């Protein structure tokens, strides 16, 4: 199986991807939107838009501190401006609404969001907790579901590797978001967090399917040895297994056999996400793009990272034990 045979190359690629993702995140950071920082976002659309300068002029008269005005197209295809400011009070909001709708042709306020800093902080906390909760429950479940898998690595190894793979799958779309934020000014919002959580779910599912096949193949290719010993009148039975085939071959055939499924499920998911990206409207466009990156990363990792990593770890463990 190519993924196992060339595992060093695949793992190196993964390491490079992860490292560069971390570097991108560390240097560029994330462009947090008002969902997290608090502030106001106003979208005003026109049939015939005024110049950006005019809009900026109006905003300057109302807000004293920093603001940004960005040209955009609203979902109805009309020319629009996105105005980001600090959290506005009632009076400022009214002034702004009157100001921007009076210029241009048919000015219309299509969206207004204002979020207090407290809610923003709470959302950040909640997002963090949710991701932490999901990850821990997954580790526990995998370790539990694969308990008794025994030779040559324990079920916790599978659980741990599932998490490593998860980190890879989440890092890639997050790094993409960082790039989008830096170059295109795209902001991190609640939808992004949801996209990441969906990626988590997808990635785990993908990895588990492969590991499940490994588990099944292990059971088919091993012989059982039972050793009975008696200690102080209590009969203890110890079961050990010997594999009838090399471990890497067993894992390799598991990857091979689940390959078609992995690719097909990815294809159907990618199809719907692509549809969402191109026709789904601007609100969910970034969401679809982030998910696409996550699904691609998830497919790569379930084939080229998860199983190769198990094999590499098993080899490492074996060589350590033989040295003893």
């Amino acid at each position: 199986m190519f993924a196992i045979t060339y595992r060093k190359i695949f793992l190196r690629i993964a390491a490079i991807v992860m490292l560069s993702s971390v570097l991108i995140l560390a240097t560029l950071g994330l462009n947090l939107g008002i969902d997290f920082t608090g502030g106001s976002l106003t979208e005003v659309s026109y049939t015939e838009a005024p110049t950006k300068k005019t809009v900026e002029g109006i905003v300057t008269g109302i807000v004293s501190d920093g603001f940004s005005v960005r040209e955009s197209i609203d979902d109805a295809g009309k020319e629009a401006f996105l105005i980001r400011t600090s959290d506005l009070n009632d009076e400022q909001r009214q002034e702004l609404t009157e100001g921007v709708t009076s210029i241009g042709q048919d000015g219309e306020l299509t969206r207004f969001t204002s979020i207090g800093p407290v809610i923003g902080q709470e959302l950040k906390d909640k997002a963090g907790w949710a991701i932490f909760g999901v990850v821990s429950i997954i580790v526990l479940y995998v370790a539990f579901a694969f308990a008794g898998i025994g030779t040559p690595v324990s079920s916790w190894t599978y659980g741990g590797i599932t998490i490593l793979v998860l980190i890879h799958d989440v890092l890639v779309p997050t790094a993409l978001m960082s790039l989008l934020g830096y170059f295109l000014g795209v902001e991190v919002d609640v939808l992004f967090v949801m996209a990441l959580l969906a990626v988590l779910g997808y990635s785990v599912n993908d990895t588990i399917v492969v590991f499940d096949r490994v588990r099944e193949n292990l059971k088919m290719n091993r012989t059982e040895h039972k050793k009975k010993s008696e200690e102080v009148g209590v009969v203890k039975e110890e079961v050990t297994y010997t594999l009838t085939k090399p471990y890497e071959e067993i894992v390799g055939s598991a990857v091979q056999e689940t390959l078609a499924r992995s690719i097909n499920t990815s294809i159907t998911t990618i199809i719907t996400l692509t549809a969402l990206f191109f026709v789904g409207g601007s609100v969910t466009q970034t969401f679809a793009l982030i998910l696409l990156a996550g699904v691609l990363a998830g497919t790569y990792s379930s084939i080229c990272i998860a199983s190769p990593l198990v094999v590499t770890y098993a080899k490492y463990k074996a060589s350590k034990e033989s040295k003893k």
Partner: protein
Amino acid sequence: MSNKQEQESEQAKSFLRWFRGLVLVGLVLWLGTVVYQNGTAPDSTKPFKLGLDLAGGSHLVYVADTSNVDSAEVSELMNVLRDVIERRVNIFGVSEPIVQVESSSFASENQNPRLVVELPGVTDVSEAVAEIGRTPLLEFKLYDEGLVDQIDALENLSTSLGTASSGKATISMRDSEGGLLERGQLPFKDTGLTGRYLETASLEFAGTNSGRLSNEPLVNVRFTSEGADLFATITRENVGTQLGIFLDGELISAPVINEAIVGGTAIISGGFALEEARALAQNLSFGALPVPIELQSTQTIGASLGAEVLEHGMEAGVLGLSLVLIFMLLWYRLPGLIAGIALLSYITMMLALFQLIPVTLTAAGLAGFVLSLGMAVDANVLVFERMKEEYRSGVSSREAAASGFKRAWNAIRDGNITSLLSAIILFWFGTSMVKGFALVFGLGIVVSMFSALVITRTLLMLIPDVKIDQGTLTAKLLGSGLGQRQNLPQKRENSNPNST
């Protein structure tokens, strides 16, 4: 067992298979028409519920300041607050407003409860805020001699300090109960008697011998029995003191208490004009707020924008669905067709659940649903791949299907349980927007498992039982799809009569 009997029991089995399949398909078709009617009929009792971001409207979040309230009373007070705001919202005629209390989760440091107000169709948020905010906060406070001196002292100190150090230093002073004093504050202290103890308020006119201008408009306030007791105690203990009546923090009148008032009513007179007094009485009886609230976040989505988002979302759904159906049909042929039927059933069942529960559909929920279309076929794909392996090894199609289901079950179970756990945690921790997504995601997992394990399975069993080496049309349709690979897994060689 004779040959004839065997044949008969085979016929009975076949009949039963067809019967089950037809019942299932019939049920799904029936559900489909119900969903369609519910979704399109103008007077439907169970229409699709669209969130504000799809229908347009305003979403307001208020924070209630419960710092002065006993923590045991908070939840009750919040319910009172919700009722009051709901009455106010109903007055200005919004269809299906949502007013709900949201307590912050334990993961947050801020423990003040919130009130979420959703006003579909209201896009002028200033107007809405003004309407809600108009509800007055009524307080009764007692004049306190001691405070007068303190406030004077604070004023003097602040003034001299302000001129001496150009306002950089600040000074703070507390009253006898530890409350922070403010400059310019009136010398009244809280009594605990507020609008929460109010039952009704009505407009009255002063009589000729009441010592007031005759026919002066007054507001008559009636307390609840609890409030009446409190009012009686306060008035009994403070005869001769001024009782300040504050509306939204402003002193409107401060009559001197002449005797204990036990009747549970009070008169507010403040030289009102007729209109003023009427509005005040109305506002008070429609609800004086039990606790002060502050607007923390607002969100408005224009109605046209929402409709556009909905349309785009549906277009994406239809396009995605068609492409997935085509893909499955090309790759898996006959089983692919069955997976397609299962996928359509999945959609029907999900839409029915959206109407029944009801699930409020938002842009995020819609995106989650479109995503789930791609993932819902996963269980089918898992089973078909397994089935294909078995089938190619020479097992008959029906046997292959049965063992495909059996062997794929572990993977389906583990994968779906972890996803379901994630959905539950999301629902638990999430804000209302995340909750909508988590609900759609979680329902999708359960329903897609049902569609794969029940519908796909039942229909798959309907296909005539064939073997790969029969070479008939059905056998070809069941075959490999476009995915024919020459290097098949050679694991179960011993069961494969064609192996070389």
